[in-house]
């Protein structure tokens, strides 16, 4: 396993080394020591490398990730896995706001809570939050799945498009055009698949979840709906 100590190695050197990795590189398992809240750690990865980060990270950890698996053994700052395309990012602690923002693919797992705007503008990413999510999560969410084992905050799914939201606990309020929908077998299967991928296996009963999605009333601007905004 390769290691990089950010107490002695610069972020630039670390990211450049990770960017140089090819799919068949010998060192496809890295450990990053002393992250000390540094921003943009392991951002822009393209190789199928596993990067384990021992500690807390700042903004945009694993931003725009492609194919890599990034594990944060700590908390993550703003915009973790933003615009992720593929691969997997796992935060063992809590995540700050905008986790998985505009993500297009891959899986983001947050073992703790996620703050405001989790999954904002998501475009195909799957997000599993084992705790709760803050206000305006899944704002303008276009595609993908957000699974929340705890509670949802205010204005969940505001102006949502085609993303699917699953919340096991309560939701403080739903945003514009976001409504509760029936949890059918296909949705239970989807939640089960995502929980399995998040390492929860059969520990959680998928029937406990509530599904939310778009009412599609605001897909075409109409003056009669102006009060919804």
């Amino acid at each position, binding site marked *: 396993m390769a290691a990089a100590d950010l107490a002695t190695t610069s972020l630039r050197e670390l990211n450049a080394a990770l960017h140089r990795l090819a799919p068949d590189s010998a060192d496809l398992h890295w450990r990053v020591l002393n992250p000390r809240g540094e921003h*943009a750690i392991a951002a*822009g990865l393209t190789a199928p490398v596993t990067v384990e980060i021992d500690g807390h990270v700042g903004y945009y950890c694993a931003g*725009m990730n492609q194919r890599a698996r990034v594990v944060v053994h700590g908390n993550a700052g703003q915009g973790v896995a933003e615009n992720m395309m593929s691969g997997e990012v796992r935060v063992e602690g809590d995540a700050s706001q*905008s986790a998985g*923002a505009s993500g297009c693919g891959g899986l983001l797992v947050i073992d703790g809570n996620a703050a405001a705007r989790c999954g904002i*503008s998501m475009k195909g990413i799957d997000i599993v939050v084992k705790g709760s999510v803050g206000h305006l999560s899944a704002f303008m969410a276009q595609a993908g799945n957000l699974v929340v084992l705890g509670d949802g905050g205010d204005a969940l799914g505001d102006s949502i498009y085609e993303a699917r939201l699953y919340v096991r606990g309560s939701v403080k309020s739903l945003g514009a055009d976001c409504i509760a929908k029936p949890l059918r077998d296909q949705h239970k299967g989807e939640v089960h698949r995502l929980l399995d991928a998040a390492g929860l296996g059969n520990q959680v009963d998928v029937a406990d979840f509530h599904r939310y999605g778009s009412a599609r009333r605001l897909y*075409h601007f109409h003056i009669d709906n102006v009060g919804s905004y």
Partner: protein
Amino acid sequence: MSAPLDRWIHTPPRKSATFDDHAIAEIRRAAATGIYDIRGAGAKRKLPHFDDLLFLGASVSRYPLEGYREKCLTEVTIGTRHAKKPITLKIPITIAGMSFGSLSAQAKEALGRGASAVGTSTTTGDGGMTAEERAHSTALVYQVLPSRYGMNPDDLRRADAIEVVVGQGAKPGGGGMLLGQKITQRVAEMRVLPEGIDQRSACRHPDWTGPDDLEIKIRELREITDWEKPIYVKVGASRPYYDIALAVKAGADAIVLDGMQGGTAATQDVFIEHVGIPTLAAIRPAAQALQDLGMHRKVQLIVSGGIRNGADVAKCLALGADAVSIGTAALIALGDNDPHLEEEYRALGTTAGAYDDWHEGRDPAGITTQDPVLAARLDPVTAGRKLANFLSVLTLETQTIARACGKSHIHNLEPEDLVALTVEAAAMARVPLAGTDWIPGVNTYAR
């Protein structure tokens, strides 16, 4: 015989300057529909503009350059502050960001062809990068917008520069809108949206909210692209001194400053006409911010919004810009609002030169449309050649003025070369009222 006095009994009809024909028509339109007017393009009302400035030219105290003999260089390099690979443009005129979606693929290709032919850059827009524009653009700036539609790290790496869009002159503080008529299957797939819906673009970025965040965001983009690409920050002109200072602080290599005459694909008319400030008023505060920070010419300033000819280009440069960007003028060069389409414009309830319902996707010129039949009307090769011609003329005109002012490089133009025709323009551009030494707000009028 004198005229009968009874002809003066009734006062002649007098229309209100306040409630003019346009205001009255808009009241009636609003009363009939219950919704605000949405349109494309930039501010249409009369504003203090570059026509309110004049160059002084050379005289006894200034030495001109021979127009057909002596060189006047036009090359501009952008991204010298931090980027490993700055881009060098042969001319100081670039093509502004306009999306595939708002524009047809043919129009985007034509913009790339025209810009590349004269050695300058073009810019993507909301919705991502198309293969056509990448293939036909030798220098392509990739926009990172609040919506992140089509945002792809592979395209980020394929770009020659990156532009973080905070706002645009037509609507500082506003998001975008693309009505369902233009959300075709291809546009919908690029934006991950259902086909045919009215698409909204966010007005704020999803993962940063202020200047300190922006600094970290820019650093992330640099890390992802290994510090190779110049990173621009684009702002709509509203508080230029502070916005430019904050963009510099955030680490921008270049700043795009877009005045309220700058166009948009679609926004509320009230937004276009009443939010933001004119381009003329924005440049000097922006340049001042750069000078105060010791960053003038180190962080390049690119100005856009209502630039029509080489005189406008030269005036922007003299006021402190490093380059300019054109959008509306480029579309006109491609064939937008051409009088030969007058019959079709009339069928749409408008006239050539006034057509601005770009959001409806029925552009007879094939530019602001996704209708395959209409879009096929635009030949990218011919349209690209027309744009290249126009860019060449802008450059020649700029050089003509620069030489007349004795400048061997267009960047040597300076405010001292300018005077203003109106008190307002003098105050905004911070140059003297013509024939005086008076710069309102800077010194007092002395006879």
